[in-house]
């Protein structure tokens, strides 16, 4: 299986170079050349207007999945309380369902969770699949996998969305392998391709330096875990719908792990996910005095303080205040970035804020590209002046 370019036909437009997901096409003397790292994926073939790219690969047959219906959200509850990401996913599922003309369904596992049904329906579920069992009270991979897989096999959904929480990212891959479905991790955008009616899943890769859009053409359900804080819950609607009970059997010996002890760490809630205003600092804040000013500014604005990975690693802020790829995703009304360059990993966690202010000495800092308002200046001058201005205005 190979892909090759008929050099005489190549007009040097570089469309294939841009399209190659593997960076395996290069321009040499004005013509495209395929490099060794080509995986023969064939993405370049369709973008070539000259018909210069050929392959000997037989196109893979896409099976008929027309019997697959329904967009499922595997809801996450802890101690009988729904996680916000479940409502966010129901909101997104609602948009997708409208395009596909299918139902939004929620799946909820736990013990004595009847109180959650109403909330799931209010936020968009037309059907709730419910598994209520003593052995489901605390999450364990084996038990949850067994139940969700049985539901998937019985009711054959088209799409299954799971929050990309620690629980979701433990559960989803296990399910995907058992039901033989492709799975995309930690998506930040989901949409329906209008031609093929398939789910297009976009996610950051290479530490957020690259965004990749991924499709799942060859298996069902189309599975994705979705980053918390990125989608929005829909407006509450009238509660109505069906509840379908899981009726399988579950015994302790089906579960290969035992929880000996659970410790809840009383992490002080940072409230970052709910905050209307966030003041974030980076390496440029520098000193204890600098951080005192950041906290003061946040207080003057009634907001919260966040930071980049480097300031967390250096111990200036607690880990739960880290915003970015490996920290939290936030979307406040106002995000004030002080002395942080805006590495892509950080931007991945805050670029959806409604308004962004960037204050940095370096006019070339990438944070200015995502800001609504930029100030090229030393934050140690600007932040105290801002605090004075705010306090004077009160």
């Amino acid at each position: 299986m190979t892909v090759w370019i008929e050099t005489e036909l190549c007009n040097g437009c570089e469309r294939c170079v841009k399209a190659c997901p593997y960076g395996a096409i290069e321009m040499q003397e004005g013509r495209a050349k395929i490099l060794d790292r080509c995986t023969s994926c064939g993405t370049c073939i369709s973008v070539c207007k000259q018909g210069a790219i050929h392959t000997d690969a037989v196109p893979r047959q896409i099976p008929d999945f027309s019997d697959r219906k329904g967009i499922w959200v595997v809801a996450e509850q802890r101690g009988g309380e729904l996680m916000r990401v479940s409502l966010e996913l129901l909101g997104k599922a609602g948009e997708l369902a409208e395009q596909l003309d299918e139902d939004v369904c929620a799946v909820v596992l736990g013990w004595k969770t009847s109180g959650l049904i109403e909330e799931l329906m209010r936020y968009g579920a037309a059907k709730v699949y419910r598994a209520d069992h003593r052995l489901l009270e605390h999450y364990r991979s084996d038990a949850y996998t067994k139940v969700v897989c049985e539901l998937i096999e019985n009711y054959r959904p088209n799409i299954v969305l799971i929050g990309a929480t620690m629980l979701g990212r433990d559960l989803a891959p296990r399910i995907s392998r058992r039901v033989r479905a492709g799975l995309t991790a930690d998506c930040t955008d989901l949409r329906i391709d209008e031609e093929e009616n398939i789910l297009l899943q976009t996610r950051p890769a290479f530490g957020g330096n690259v965004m990749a859009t991924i499709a799942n053409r060859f298996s069902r359900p189309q599975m994705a875990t979705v980053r918390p804080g990125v989608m929005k819950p829909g407006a509450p609607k009238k509660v109505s719908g069906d509840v379908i009970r899981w009726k399988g059997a579950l015994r302790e010996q089906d579960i290969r792990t035992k929880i000996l002890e659970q410790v809840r760490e009383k992490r002080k809630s940072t409230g970052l996910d709910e905050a209307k205003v966030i003041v974030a600092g980076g390496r440029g804040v520098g000193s204890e005095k600098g951080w005192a000013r950041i906290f003061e500014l946040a207080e003057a604005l009634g907001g919260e303080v966040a930071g980049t990975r480097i300031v967390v690693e250096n111990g200036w802020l607690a880990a739960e205040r880290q915003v970015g790829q490996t920290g939290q995703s936030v979307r406040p009304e106002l995000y004030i970035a002080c002395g942080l360059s805006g590495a892509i990993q950080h931007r991945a966690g805050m670029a959806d804020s409604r308004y962004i202010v960037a204050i940095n000495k370096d006019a070339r800092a990438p944070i200015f590209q995502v800001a609504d308002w930029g100030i090229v200046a030393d934050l140690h001058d600007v932040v105290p002046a801002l605090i004075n201005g705010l306090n004077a205005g009160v």
Partner: protein
Amino acid sequence: MTARVLRRAEEKGAMEIVVLVKQVPDTTEVRLDPRTGNLIREGVESIMNPDDRHALEAAARLKESSGGRVTVLSMGPSQAIDVITEAVGICADRGVLLCDKAFAGADTWSTSTTLGKAVSKLGDIDLVLCGRQAIDGDTAQIGPQVAEYLGIAHISCVTGIEAVKRRSITVSRRTEDGFERVKSALPVLLTVMKEINEPRYPAIASLLAACAEKAPIEVWNAADLGVQVGDVGLEGSLTQVIRTFAPKSKRQTEMIEGDTSSVVEGLLSRLREKKLI
């Protein structure tokens, strides 16, 4: 799915440990060429995936404390032999690189098929260790998917190994709001987080020994694994990358200029105008 019958505890001697490692680009340096939109790979250093290094360290410590044999396994291009060599220099008794053009372009489904097949071929295993996630893909899917392929349990986000007995292991793992202590029967697959230990680096002498021609390192291709070309790599994948692009912002940035008091006044008036303060 190959539900394998793994060695029963009563038959076994030393503990058999497999560590899955990945060679990754040092992602803080990977960029897209702003002109072509391509990944700039030239000059980017390749490293052992950080979480996997912690998994290897966990294996090294188990071997020191309870005995056993460590096999390190990696799938990748020929240069990934470097991480195998390093792992052999650290603690592994045996290294296997899974290398074949047929494995290229794999999603996590077909990667877990290839790795799972290879673990099966190694024989009876008590413990599989790997990092929680790789810094290039960030999926955290390979561990649980390999475990499911092998038909064994897994525990993710492990931050400490408390006790290893002949038939069971007790670990602590991170949860969203704290941690839990979990016991599992063996065999089991663990994905580990950085908190688990402080990894060591190989001594020069043992690294040199691992580079020697007689070092216990093998390379297996698709035929060695007995996999069909259509089951692995891009062709065996269930998901495909359709397009890659640089993250872009749609915002128009307005720069506020002047001396400190005028930029502050300028900013405050804009914030007031948008009713943000």
